[in-house]
Structures are given as structure tokens and as C-alpha cells.
């Protein structure tokens, strides 16, 4: 079958759902973070596919910005995880209950 816009959007949607399932089901903070990256990438793929098929370059500019912001976010997020690990000696979400009432 010819690969049209729907096919690319399907891959993007499935990848987004995989990432969402990872965020819900995994308990390791780092793997949750990787699943978040997966979801961001799925959104990027949808942007690029729509930009290609509507012949509008703005989508690609947006993906460029998303990649940069994601890199900044990963740097800060991983620094937070390291700081958290220093305090709690664990990167497991079930051990992080200090804000629980």
C-alpha cells in the first residue's frame, strides 16, 4: 500500500501510545523519562509528516525548537534525578513518598 499521511500519523500515534504505556506501567524513574522522550519523538514525527504533506515548512521549524527544548529538559531533569538519588538512594517512584500526607 502506498505510504500516505495516514500511515505516518499511525506510526506516530502508536509510538505515542507506547510511550504513554511506559510512563504508566514502568516504575523506574529513568525508564519513565525515556518513555517521555518517546512521546516527544512521536509528536515530532506527526509534525514532520503534516509539514511534508501540506507543504508548510513551519512544522519543521517547530520540530527544530522541540528538539532543542527537549535537550534542555533532559539536562535539567537528569540533574534533578541525580539530586533525588543522592537524597533517597533510590530511583524508584514507589520509594518517593515524602510528599504523601
Amino acid at each position: 500500500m502506498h505510504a500516505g499521511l495516514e500511515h505516518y500519523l499511525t506510526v506516530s500515534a502508536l509510538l505515542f501510545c507506547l510511550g504513554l504505556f511506559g510512563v504508566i506501567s514502568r516504575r523506574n524513574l529513568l525508564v519513565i523519562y525515556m518513555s517521555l522522550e518517546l512521546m516527544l519523538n512521536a509528536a515530532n514525527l506527526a509534525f514532520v509528516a503534516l509539514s511534508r504533506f501540506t507543504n508548510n515548512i513551519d512544522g519543521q521549524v517547530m520540530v527544530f525548537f522541540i528538539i532543542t527544548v527537549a535537550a534542555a529538559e533532559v539536562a535539567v531533569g537528569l540533574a534533578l534525578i541525580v539530586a533525588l538519588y543522592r537524597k533517597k538512594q533510590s530511583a524508584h517512584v514507589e520509594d518517593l513518598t515524602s510528599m504523601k500526607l
Partner: protein
Amino acid sequence: MIHDIAFYIFAFLTLACGALVIANPFSRNPVTSAMFLVLCIASMAGLFVLLHAFFLAAVQVLVYAGAVMVLFLFVIMLLDLKEEERRKLKVFGLAAGAISVGAVAAILMRLIWVGRPGNGLSAPILEGETRRLGHVLFEQYLLPFEILSLLLLVAMVGAILLSKKDLK
């Protein structure tokens, strides 16, 4: 024709590696997850090439598969995560998550395949996409681009401050 075959190969690789990131039946070590995330991102760069986004494919490989994943691996090796592998999974939570994600997937699939946003749209023959992207980026989006550099500086300062030993 070759384009379609390449699309199916890259799409399969992307989805398979994405599935192995979140649920690997052989190992629950975060390092394997990170390695499959690298593969997933590389095959997604292949999809970007098929969509004529050559510059973004290069940036994807350089920034994600290069810088971001090195950062991930560095942190994984910094933290000693040996005992994480022995935890039991909660069946109820998994089932609830699977059902809700399945519902989201069903909604998205219905949206795509009933609405068919690509109906009547065909990819135009393009030349020099990267040149066009550069023009738009440095003319129309110059201010956001400069703000982005400031954001990177702020993130760098924040990351250094957060990873200091005596966090106030």
C-alpha cells in the same frame, strides 16, 4: 515503490524498538532500554529522511542519539540500579494502564482512519528543503531562535546548580 518499502521497514523498526524500550522480556536493565531508544531514534531519523526533512534527520541523530542518550547512559551508570530489577510488577496497575492506553490508541486510530486528513493531499516534489528551512528559521523565527539559546544557557546553569553536592 522503494519509498514505500523503506517506510514499512523504518516504521517497523521504530515501533519494535519503542516497544522494547518500555517492556523488554529478556532484561529490565535501564541500559538495554537506553540502547533500544537509540535504535528507535535512529530509525525515526530514517523516517524523517523519507519525509524530505534531511536537516532534522541529522539533528535528530546528533542531538538525540548523540548528546541526550550519552547523558542518559552517563546517569544510569552513575546511579547503581542493580536492585531495581527484582521488584514485582503490579498486575492491577498494568491492566488499568493497558486498558486506558488502548482506549487512547483506539480514539487516535479512529480519528486518523475515519477522518482521513491526508485525503487528496499528496507529497509535492520538493528540492532544497533545508535551504527553505534555514530561510524561515533565520528570518521569520529569528527571535524565538535567539530566545532558545538563552533557554539553553538557563538549562545549563540549572543543571550545574542542581548537581552540586550541597544543594541548598
